[in-house]
């Protein structure tokens, strides 16, 4: 059975310009120990999806509908008190900017202890020992000194390690990582990605990785879901998606990223563009969400939204024209 099952998730926001359908009918699942990547550009709803899973969307102006079943229980039906017991314990989260998600006036040790004392009922001494253990686990040198330091005394990479330490302190079953390496430099990103891979092997938590960087996806995810304008447009295993993307949007995304080393062989001189922009989510969209920018668009697409169909082995895409079967892109 899947660890997390999301069914027809709809997260809408009331705005002065109308209802913003930030996430509009998204379903997916995550198995135990699995890494699922959610990919898409700004405004596609990937972060709102993750915030909805944790029920961190303020209501109002937001409204979450659908079902989020975690280990058999629907998180949307739980009273706040029970949800608090799950947050930071069974499901935890790391954010993009470690400077704004750590409390600047508390030592990092205190911030790690807090979650341990609250969820695991440890006393202060035991929590302190465990905090030092966690800092060691995430590769922070001199953990005994660092537990007494404040976030501003640490570098960006170290702060992100502290965030990971807090997130993993209670041995969560699911870790949601929202752009965990986007704010970091490449050499530090490489360190953090390696750390996440090592920890995944050791701790065994399932991961939902939210990112716009296809390189990071290829590096650590097993399955990918591509979002566009609040909908899921494609889902497949990582190998399958990069080998044979079916949705024109996914194909466009992959074509728009230059690959290191590609221009040296004298290959393509021009990047593929996706013309136009993301549609306004405050207006109802009839037909396919990608119709306005799609090279394959026809009247059919403008009138009828395509459903998610099986296009290959465990590979689904929402497109009227995407080829079925084993066609390489």
């Amino acid at each position, binding site marked *: 059975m899947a660890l997390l099952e999301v069914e027809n998730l709809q997260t809408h926001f009331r705005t002065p310009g109308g209802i913003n359908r930030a996430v509009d009918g998204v379903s997916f699942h995550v198995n135990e120990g699995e890494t699922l990547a959610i990919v898409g550009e700004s405004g596609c709803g990937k972060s709102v999806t993750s915030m909805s899973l944790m029920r961190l969307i303020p209501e109002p102006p937001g409204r979450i509908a659908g079902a989020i079943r975690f280990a058999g229980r629907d998180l949307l039906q739980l009273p706040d008190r029970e949800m608090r017991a799950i947050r930071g314990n069974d499901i935890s989260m790391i954010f993009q900017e470690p400077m704004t998600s750590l409390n600047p006036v508390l030592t990092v040790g205190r911030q790690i202890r807090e979650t341990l004392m609250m969820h695991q009922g440890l006393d202060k001494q035991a929590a302190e020992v465990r905090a030092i253990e966690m800092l060691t686990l995430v590769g922070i040198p001199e953990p005994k000194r660092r537990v007494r330091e404040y976030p501003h005394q640490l570098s960006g990479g170290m702060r992100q390690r502290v965030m990971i330490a807090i997130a993993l302190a209670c041995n969560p079953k699911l870790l949601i990582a929202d752009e965990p390496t986007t704010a970091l430099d490449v050499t530090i990103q490489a360190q953090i990605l390696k750390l996440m891979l090592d920890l995944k092997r050791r701790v065994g938590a399932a991961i939902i990785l939210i990112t716009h960087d296809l390189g990071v996806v290829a590096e650590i995810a097993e399955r990918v879901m591509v979002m566009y304008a609040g909908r899921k447009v494609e889902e497949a295993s990582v190998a399958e998606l990069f080998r044979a993307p079916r949705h024109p949007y996914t194909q466009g995304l992959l074509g728009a*990223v230059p*690959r290191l080393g*590609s221009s040296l062989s004298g290959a393509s001189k021009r990047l593929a563009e*996706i*013309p136009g922009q993301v549609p306004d989510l405050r207006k109802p969209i009839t037909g396919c969400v990608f119709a306005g920018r799609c090279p394959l668009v026809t009247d059919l697409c403008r009138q009828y939204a395509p459903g998610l169909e099986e296009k290959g082995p465990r590979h689904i895409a929402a497109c009227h024209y995407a080829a079925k079967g084993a066609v390489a892109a």
Partner: protein
Amino acid sequence: MSPPLLQVNDLKKHFPVRAGLFGPRSERVYAVDGVSFEIERGETLSLVGESGCGKSTVGRAILRLFDVTAGQVILDGQRIDDASPSALRQMRRRVQVVFQDPFSSLNPRMRVRDILAEPIRNFGLAKSAADLDARVASLMDTVRLPREALNRRPHEFSGGQRQRIGIARALAAEPELIVCDEAVSALDVSVKAQIVNLLQDLQREFGLALLFISHDLAIVEHMTHRVAVMYLGKIVELAPKQEIFAAPSHPYTQALLSAVPLPEPGAARSPIILRGDVPSPINPPSGCRFHTRCPFAFDRCRIEEPQLRATGSDQWVACHLDEPPQGWRP
């Protein structure tokens, strides 16, 4: 042979910092500490490196957004760094800039028409009011925005469109060199591709030279002719793109390239994971500034600072590895 369009000689920029909240300004940030390079007409030179390596400071020094601590910046044979205000004005026209964030670099109260007209008026490029209008309209065509949009204000545009306005504003002064300071870094993948293609088209069309400051190595490889890799205020390697990306010499360049995740699942790669973080530019390490993280560092690296030396026809590396012993003459 005419001089290169831009020459930067041993540029230094140190910022004083206070020790403590009210303390004396006793310490200095060695943001840029002896950087030299040239840019030819119509060429793209990229400055790459991680946060705090000084790449943006170099760009700002060339624009003379502040006075430099030492060194020279020479545009077409004339020095920018000590130019008088009147001489500087003419040089400012020839060197323009596109910033990273199109949200904060455009005045929200101005219409696009006025944003584009300002540099044309400022540098007295239009002969008449009609000429001004024609120039503004043609700039919109150049960056592929509809002319109807001229009466709108920046907030009515998406990020990619705003960056097009920023580029049009830079082009309005008819520059020879544009400093692109992380000009595509804040944009989404599909929009980034549009802007990268636009910059390349414009370079061909107008023979522009670009100083492309970026941390995105894949985009750099796609755009650039030559690359300068910076680390803690110094250039550690300077070479044509082919050499940098196919056969990087400096251990830092090698680590930087190997750290980029490739969009190819299962790609056989073994990233060089560097130890620790970039040291502080207030107290940079002795000797080679990279020695604290370098996997190949030996005793000499900790004591003696390596100088940039030619290793190929146009390739320069600052590293003691493979360096001929001192006193050796070919």
